[in-house]
């Protein structure tokens, strides 16, 4: 393992710590801590009772001390109890994480499958008609409000045509096979991949244009390789290197999109869970959810970084990662 990778891991841990500390502080500023809610629910509680309850839950102690406590417990795997679901946080979290990773994974594969050909075609003839059309489509993809796109899909395919279910997951309690589950995933995955396609295709296009100016491309041309071969074998293989990093960098955005899509399609997943936890004052759940989402994103970036080093020998000896 290289020194560079080690320092990136260190940085990621520091970022994770900062984000969790920041969210811990902010969540304490949200309306209605658990005791406030108890007071609202039971008017007979006196201020003394409230103070005692706060002391019992440790809410009267200073914030840094409470955060240190939380961190210590979380590191030992004790995430506390979820207020909304009345079960340990890990019990709600783990299945949701799986569901979101499935959604993200499928959306990413679909997006790459569309974006790579689109980006290569656009770069084949920069400023050409195809390039302009793809460019416009990309702009449309990043400009469309994701929740509205999801609504339109529901409007057309569920309300209008009746082909697909309007929700993003089978109703609870119904034991359905994987094929049936896929049917529920079609619209969420489609809605999530549109903006990803747009941003990936731009990455591929600019990486391709860059790669096509390289010496080896000229050599390949001079040796009489066909246009398609130069484009797909010589250009794309090199262009995919920078694209790996950029796609990993977009995972955070993709996760934000998953939150929206899960909310519109009422699909139980991490994003919707975090959203519900924040709105429902479920502090423990919100904290772990936020931290986990950040950790997944950082890990994906680290993974891409490590992969990049493997794929491109020049990086292994190189210094800083630059921009």
């Amino acid at each position, binding site marked *: 393992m290289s020194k560079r990778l080690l320092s990136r891991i260190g940085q990621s841990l520091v970022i994770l710590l900062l984000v969790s500390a920041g969210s811990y502080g902010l969540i304490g500023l949200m309306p209605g801590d658990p005791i406030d809610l108890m007071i609202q629910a039971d008017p007979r509680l006196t201020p003394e009772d409230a103070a005692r309850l706060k002391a019992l839950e440790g809410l009267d102690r200073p914030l840094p001390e409470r955060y240190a406590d939380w961190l210590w417990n979380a590191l030992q795997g004790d995430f506390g109890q979820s207020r909304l679901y009345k079960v340990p946080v890990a019990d709600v979290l783990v299945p949701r994480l799986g569901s979101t990773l499935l959604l993200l994974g499928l959306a990413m594969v679909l997006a790459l499958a569309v974006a790579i050909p689109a980006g290569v075609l656009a770069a084949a003839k920069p400023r050409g008609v195809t390039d302009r059309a793809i460019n416009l489509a990309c*702009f*449309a993809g990043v400009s469309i409000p994701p929740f509205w796109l999801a609504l339109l899909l529901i409007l057309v395919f569920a309300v209008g045509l009746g082909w697909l279910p309007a929700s993003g997951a089978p109703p609870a309690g119904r034991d359905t096979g994987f094929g049936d589950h896929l049917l529920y995933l079609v619209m969420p995955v489609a809605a999530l991949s549109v903006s990803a396609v747009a941003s990936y295709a731009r990455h591929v296009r600019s990486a391709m244009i860059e790669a096509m100016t390289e010496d080896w491309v000229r050599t390949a041309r001079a040796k009489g390789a066909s246009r398609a071969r130069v484009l797909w074998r010589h250009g794309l293989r090199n262009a995919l290197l920078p694209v790996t990093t950029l796609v990993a960098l977009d995972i955070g955005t993709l996760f*934000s999109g998953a939150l929206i899509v899960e909310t519109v399609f009422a699909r139980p997943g991490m994003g919707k869970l975090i959203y519900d936890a924040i709105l429902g004052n479920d502090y423990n759940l919100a904290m772990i959810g936020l931290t986990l989402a950040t950790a997944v994103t950082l890990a994906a970036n680290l993974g891409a970084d490590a992969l990049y080093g493997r794929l491109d020998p020049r990086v292994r000896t190189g210094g800083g990662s630059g921009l």
Partner: protein
Amino acid sequence: MSIAVASDRPLWRDPVPMICLALLGTMVLAALLTPAIERLLGVDAVTVDLFGRFQPPSEKHLLGQDELGRDMLARLLRGGQVSLLVGFLGAGLAAVIGTVIGLLAGYLGGRLDAVLMRMTDTVIALPILPLLIVLAALDLGKLGLPEGLATSENASLWKIVVIVAMAGWTTTARLVRAATLSVRSRTYVEAAVASGASTFRILWRHVLPNVSGPILVAVTLSIGNVILLESVLSFLGLGIQPPTPSWGAMLTNAQTIVWEAPHLAIWPGLLVFVTVLAINLLGDSLRDRIVGV
């Protein structure tokens, strides 16, 4: 990061940015003239008409009525005022933050540059929406703001402006940093250093004016992102608070509306889409001509 399909024609000869400008001009004009339009049509955005729930377009209500029988057109106009206002204010604030960071990182360089740019990369990479939701859910009263300010009618507007700016400054920071790097070694900056000007003066008088082009590009591009983000947060019920209409908030109930009155789900989203698309295409043309990447 070239996205642009470069063009050598001057801006006013290129149909795409001109169409975008005309569209945006119409939007701004409609937002400014909203009170007059409302008076002309004899409708407003707040009158509830429970007998007119989900009514299709009629002579009096040109775009129909929503789930409380309010006039759809008037609500769209009022929502447009809010979205554009948040867009301009948010992008403006984001530009200020991004410019300061970009100037400092680009001009001073060294370790500060490394730290600031690592911070920018981190903000770009993080799952930003869940974190913004926490911010949006904050109780301003607990922050120690005076009661009147924290609960005032405009509090949700200002809160959303600050929140979207916190997510939107990264584009500006990167573009300004890159431009500052190229300006830093110019002779006029050297001359200013040689004549003993302070760092602040050099940045303010010599560097800033020469990076104003990239700033303009970044601001244009971030207005679109800011409007999009505002619509998302308002859709999730965390942005502009009812009864103030905003395009995103008008779709909050749309999941139930799609079954009863699908036409209500079309307009607000379409307006966000068209506005953001026009701004982005315009920003792209500007980038093409000013930054030249």
